[in-house]
């Protein structure tokens, strides 16, 4: 019997084995840190840890599990930078909580819904991140709508593909 992390008690709730639960977020963080070395624009437009947070939160459909997943992934992402630790943590905690809460109420299995939800969560993540960065840490950040929209669409598109592959690892609870 493998150790699993599930929400339990809900319809269509999925669980993941421990290697997937630990390995996928770490792989996402690793790729997020490694790929900009080859593709400088990668970190500007894509946020793999965010996509993984959204996916796990929506699949497990447990708000507590979702917020903790977001918090851990976000804090790890903060630790790789030099800004104070917690900016990504707070943003991804919010996204994890909202994604899992929404996953309870909506069908998040089809590609269209996933695309729109990822786009929406990208903007929520950016809004929380900017608020915390400017309000608490006094980081000077300029929001560009064109760049934000482009990044949102890129993340949503990549998210749909990524979720398709991650679906192979989920197990019905």
């Amino acid at each position, binding site marked *: 019997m493998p150790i699993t992390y599930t929400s339990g008690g809900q319809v269509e709730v999925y669980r993941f084995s421990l290697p997937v639960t630990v390995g996928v977020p770490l792989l996402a963080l690793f790729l997020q840190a490694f790929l900009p070395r080859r593709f400088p624009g990668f970190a500007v437009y894509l946020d793999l840890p965010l996509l993984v947070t959204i996916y796990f939160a929506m699949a497990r459909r447990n708000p507590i599990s979702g917020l*903790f997943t977001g918090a851990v992934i976000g804090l790890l992402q903060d630790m790789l930078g030099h800004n104070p630790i917690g900016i990504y943590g*707070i943003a991804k905690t919010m996204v994890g909580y909202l994604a899992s809460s929404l996953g309870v109420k909506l069908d998040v299995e089809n590609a269209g819904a996933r695309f729109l939800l990822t786009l929406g969560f990208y903007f929520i993540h950016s809004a929380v991140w900017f608020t915390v960065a400017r309000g608490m840490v006094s980081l*000077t950040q300029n929001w560009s709508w064109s760049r934000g929209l482009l990044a949102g669409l890129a993340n949503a598109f990549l998210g749909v593909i990524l979720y398709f592959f991650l679906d192979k690892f989920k197990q019905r609870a």
Partner: protein
Amino acid sequence: MESVLGRYRNLVILVGVLFLQMLGLAVQVKRSNDTEHTRLIRVWAVDVITPFERVLIWAQNGTGNLWHSYLYLRGVRAENRQLKDQIEQLRLEQVRLNEDAVQAHRLQAVLAFKEQYISRTVAAQVIGSSGSDSSRLLYIDKGEDQGLKRDMAVITADGIVGKVLQVFPSVSQVLLINDQSSGVGTILEKSRLQGFLKGTATGEVVLEGVMSDEQVTTGERVLTSGGDQIFPKGLPVGTVTNVGTGKDLFLNIQIKPAVNLGKLEEVLVVVERQERQAQTADVGRVRAADILAQRLPSVPDKPATVTNSPTTVPAGTVAAPKAASPKPAPAGGEAVAKQPVKSPSGGVVAGSKPPSTAATQPKPATAPVEPPVKADPPKVDPAKVGPAKVDPAKVDPATTDPQDSPH
């Protein structure tokens, strides 16, 4: 009370987790963003992620080396030949630059300047980044074990990259110059105006602190001023790409970094610098002509050729050496060779002169180059031809002065 907590359990936990993170943030902000206090948890994250990066870089390099060093050797011979030619040209260029350096040292010594030398560097490979555009930094595969410390300068052959921000046992964080929190003391090469370089939120690099009544032109090079006590003076930083009016009577100067910060693979960390008084110790001078003498054995040993007038030796026309051992010019002088040899900078090498005479003239070789005027023997007035008319110093590649040009 219990029922309320139970009903809103998820929300309560969310608020609790958010509150804890905000508290942590507030503590870090209060400590003025000092990253030393969060060092331990950052070490954990770095220890988790960087081993994978190192392995991947190692495998990538191994595959690349195997392919390029053993399998894909097409064009290597031709490239080798080109590189050898380039080395020859650079050696000659070096001789000219040495002359300039000697003169600069002499002047520095006169003014009692202290010079900074980069005495030791450690080469490091870039293995990763922060993965966020709000935190522009790199991870390199060298750390405390290799003698790296905080605030050491990180450079490449093209220019400066950034400074070491955090040092872990075998990995270090490098803060790039285009990060918002970076700052570099700089000086504009021509106008000698000083300012400080900063990164912006969008990853651009700007020069601040230059008053709006100053004249700054686009294309001007920016160098380190040494004022930040991190970067040695005189390293290339970038070039001015745009000059506009900024806030508070200062110019808004945009800079294009000399280094492509998005495509870095290897860097040098300056681990040791020396500061010493400038000295005028004479270094053994090597003339470009001497190097040519070694490299061009096919240049024939020519007899003295009578020239028509002293003006036939244009500035920048340099003396060609004889094949084996340069001999002093015979009486009557020789100014123009019949087989001029192109010098690396486009100058024409002609005639020969004794090497000893070059050492007496410390002028730099910066003269404009013109082709020699061909001698016309029938028009030569023997009375005008003599050693006094042809100053050997004027035809020496390392000592030609533009002021000496008769044109």
